[in-house]
């Protein structure tokens, strides 16, 4: 069973539908026991880092996530991926879960071409930096769907895939041990995204 962490952040309709369309048993839950008994965990999230962190704190699930992250595959998506890092600087500094070394900063600060629009929103090609079982059904260069204004930096040793936006190689996929993260939305990335989710379910 794949547990999608429910901590009151974001709309899970597409994520759950995409997993179910792959025939994967999926449960949206904020229950510690269910997260413990799941085979895999997905940490979703949209919105601002600080408020998501506060909700995660309030849910009481952080100790469970930290514990389970070492036991089974965990995938953070979009803001859920950003939460995996040490800290973010969205509206002031805020600590993350510290599961992957690195920090989350404003993409606009690093773009040399100020005409490039932020949020980085739309289809961008994902280049594979390091091969991984997550890419079992994915070809480097396929397009995935991004919507974000902040991105992970200082995490070179964890990067599996990037997407070029102007002069910036945007951190697209990361991994450390049994923890994976995707900045884009696999559940909105068409067939390519579904294939990434299928590979995650087979990890």
């Amino acid at each position, binding site marked *: 069973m794949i547990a999608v962490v429910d901590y009151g952040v974001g*709309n899970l*309709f*597409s994520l759950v*539908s*995409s997993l*179910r*369309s792959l025939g994967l048993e999926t449960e949206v839950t904020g229950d510690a026991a269910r997260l413990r008994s799941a085979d895999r965990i997905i940490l979703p999230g*949209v*919105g601002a880092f600080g408020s998501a962190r506060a909700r995660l704190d309030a849910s009481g699930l952080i100790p469970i996530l930290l514990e389970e992250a070492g036991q089974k595959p965990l995938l953070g998506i979009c803001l859920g991926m950003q939460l995996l890092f040490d800290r973010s600087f969205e509206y002031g500094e805020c600590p993350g879960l510290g599961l992957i070394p690195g920090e989350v900063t404003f993409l606009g600060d690093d773009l040399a071409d100020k*005409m490039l*629009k932020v*949020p*980085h*929103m*739309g*289809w*961008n*090609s994902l280049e594979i930096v390091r091969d991984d079982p997550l890419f079992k059904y994915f070809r480097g260069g396929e*397009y995935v*769907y991004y*919507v974000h204004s902040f991105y992970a930096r200082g995490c070179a040793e964890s990067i599996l895939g990037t997407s*070029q*936006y*102007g002069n910036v190689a945007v951190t697209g996929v990361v991994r450390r041990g049994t923890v994976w993260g995707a900045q884009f939305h696999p*559940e*909105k*990335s*068409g067939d390519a*995204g*579904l294939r990434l989710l299928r590979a995650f379910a087979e990890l």
Partner: protein
Amino acid sequence: MLAKRIIPCLDVKDGRVVKGTNFEGLRDMADPVEMARFYNEAGADELVFYDITASVEGRGLFTDILRQVASEIFIPLTVGGGIRTLEDFDRVLKCGADKVSVNSGAIANPNIIVAAAKRYGDQCVVLSMDVKRVNGQFRLFAKGGREDTGIDAMDWAERGVKEGAGEIVLNSIDTDGVKNGFDLEMLDALAARVHVPIIASGGAGNMEDFAELFAHPGMDGGLAASIFHSRQVSIRELKRYLRGRGVEMRL
């Protein structure tokens, strides 16, 4: 870099897809779920659904369709038509929409943009505008292009973006249904005023029209209905053609 987007638009009335010329003489075309599947297979980068139903029953039918589409098609979905309140945003977002476009609802109540952007984020709020030249001015029209608001469309766009609209769909009433190309003059005027993605709508007649559109800086997507619905232009062929012309396309 980001690929340019090709976006088919489905106007839905009483559970069926329709598309008229110059907004009048609506013709029944097809089943929206079937069409969504077809376009997804064909490589559409996003789907736009406009609910042009007036009745409560029609609205319920629309959200059923949306839910059905969103549970089997995993590309961005934008929904518009009859969006006036935060409850309307909520209703369609819960059914799987990713972005919500406001048009007349924002003209009647401009606060909806700020309120929705605060609650759901700028990326979720699309400002859709129907614009027509009146006395040498780009004039904003309401109610599906039937009512001249007297408002300068470019001022309106700038204000909308300031208040949190994360994307603009510009539909030129002057070129809509004419199939003689997008309204590049109007689109350029908009690109000079706002710094959010611009989706061009109204006037696409063939593949060259899209190539011309994307040769203009600041254009992120091209939206069309009848040329895709009638299979006059195939999305797959169009995207191959554009890539051949040096436009970044997701294939």
